[in-house]
């Protein structure tokens, strides 16, 4: 379903220095004078993973290991420097909720805007509108502008919009911890429902418990490299013991 082959993501950290015409001119003259300093940063280094249909892959690793980068490459937000990613199926990303939310507009308008950003059609959103509102428990505030919402309410709204689709491939990046306990439980139930429906899931989390609950196999990334991939229990326990040392 998803085949990641030798994906490498290299950033040139020196890019910040060249943002204007003045710097471009200066660099032309500098080229011969000094060696180009090596600012290359490898966010991902030769990663190869295969995920079959219906599998739930957990991605664990330290902050900065490259998990979010990998997710962004799979969902098409970025292209890898080298290597390729084959994806068979439509990707529904739950990376950073509320993409496109405009604070001046009301919740009702933002549902359509956010839905449109995720690629859904008006008809689709019309049919599921009531379900979204019900799931988010925000029916009383539907016509208030988003800037008056609390951060928890915004997160609940965003999550509700992302979950109304029956995705083929779901990518979840550390967002199940939003909202109060009741909402968290509801979200987890919804995730399980989707997983049992045969959705392929890539799940990033720092909560090893929820990884052990949901995932069929786990990949451990460290500083851009794939350390280990395999059985959920084993990899999680090894990761934990290495981190706690």
């Amino acid at each position: 379903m998803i085949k990641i082959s030798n994906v490498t993501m290299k950033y040139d950290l020196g890019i910040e220095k060249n943002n204007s015409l003045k710097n471009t001119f200066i660099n032309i003259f500098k080229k011969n004078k000094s060696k180009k300093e090596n600012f290359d940063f490898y966010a991902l280094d030769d990663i190869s993973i295969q995920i079959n249909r219906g599998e739930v892959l957990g991605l664990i690793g330290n902050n900065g290991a490259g998990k979010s980068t990998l997710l962004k490459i799979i969902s098409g937000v970025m292209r890898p420097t080298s290597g390729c990613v084959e994806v068979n199926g439509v990707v529904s990303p739950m990376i950073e909720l509320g993409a496109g939310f405009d604070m001046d507009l009301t919740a009702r308008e933002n549902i359509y805007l956010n839905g449109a950003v995720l690629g859904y059609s008006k008809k689709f959103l019309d049919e599921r509108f009531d379900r979204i509102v019900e799931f988010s428990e925000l029916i009383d505030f539907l016509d208030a502008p988003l800037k008056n919402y609390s951060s928890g309410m915004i997160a609940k709204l965003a999550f509700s919009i992302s979950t109304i689709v029956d995705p083929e491939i779901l990518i979840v990046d550390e967002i199940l911890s939003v909202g109060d306990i009741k909402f968290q439980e509801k979200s987890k139930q919804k995730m399980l429902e989707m997983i049992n429906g045969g959705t392929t899931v890539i799940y990033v989390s720092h909560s090893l418990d929820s990884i052990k609950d949901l995932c069929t196999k786990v990949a451990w990334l460290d500083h851009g490299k794939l350390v280990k991939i395999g059985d959920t229990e084993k990899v999680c326990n090894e990761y934990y013991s290495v981190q706690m040392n």
Partner: protein
Amino acid sequence: MYLRNIIYNFRRYSFLMIQMISRDFKVKYKRSVLGILWSLLYPLLMMSVMAIVFSTMFGRDIEGGNYLVYLMSGLVVFNYFNEATNNAMTSIIVNFSLMKKVYIPKYIFPLSKCLFVGINFLLTLIPLLLVVLITGAPITFNYLLLPYVFICMFVFTLGVSLFISAWSVFLRDVIYIYGIVITIWQYFTPIFYDLSFIPSELVAVFELNPLYQFIKFTRTILMYGKTPDLSNFIFCAVYAMIAIIFGCITFKSKQNKFIYYA
């Protein structure tokens, strides 16, 4: 194959474009009392001010003496180009946070801005037609040719927008430089003065100005009810083609790198 991809993307994201344009409208006139009436009022006010200031100096040179329509048609067309390209130029930069979260075909940003300003432009045609009626200019079947020049204008503006929006990602100076370019361009376009004001050696250069070609086409129809000549037709189409081809090539070759310059 590539064309089919574009059409598929277009249909998939057309709803998003409608959403973005309606959001732009809502935000633009939020909290303003007159709201969308400003789109109608602004060109009328601009024209009135310029007419009062310039009509004694330049009004005599216009054939047929219809300085008001002459002025306003120039203003409306140039204003469309100005506003559309300025909005589109920053459209990618301001939407970086969105691009980093979800996959969106990047051309949607300049395209939706051009459409948004385009709709505003159509609204400004209402006061323009009003002035045409008041000044008694002839209305003929040649009015049916107006959509031709509007389409050429749209395509030309879109091409320029794609070009500068792509470059402004990498070189932020483009935003400042473009402001100066537009100001100079405005003075070099015969909006409030007639072409006869220009020394004959330079007339050919002024005629090469694409915006002048669009304005001339519009004026020929609105002021005199006549058919523009063939060279006018050709220039409009050729400029539109050149702009859109350059714009698309530049944009397509650079769009994958935008995200690194956020």
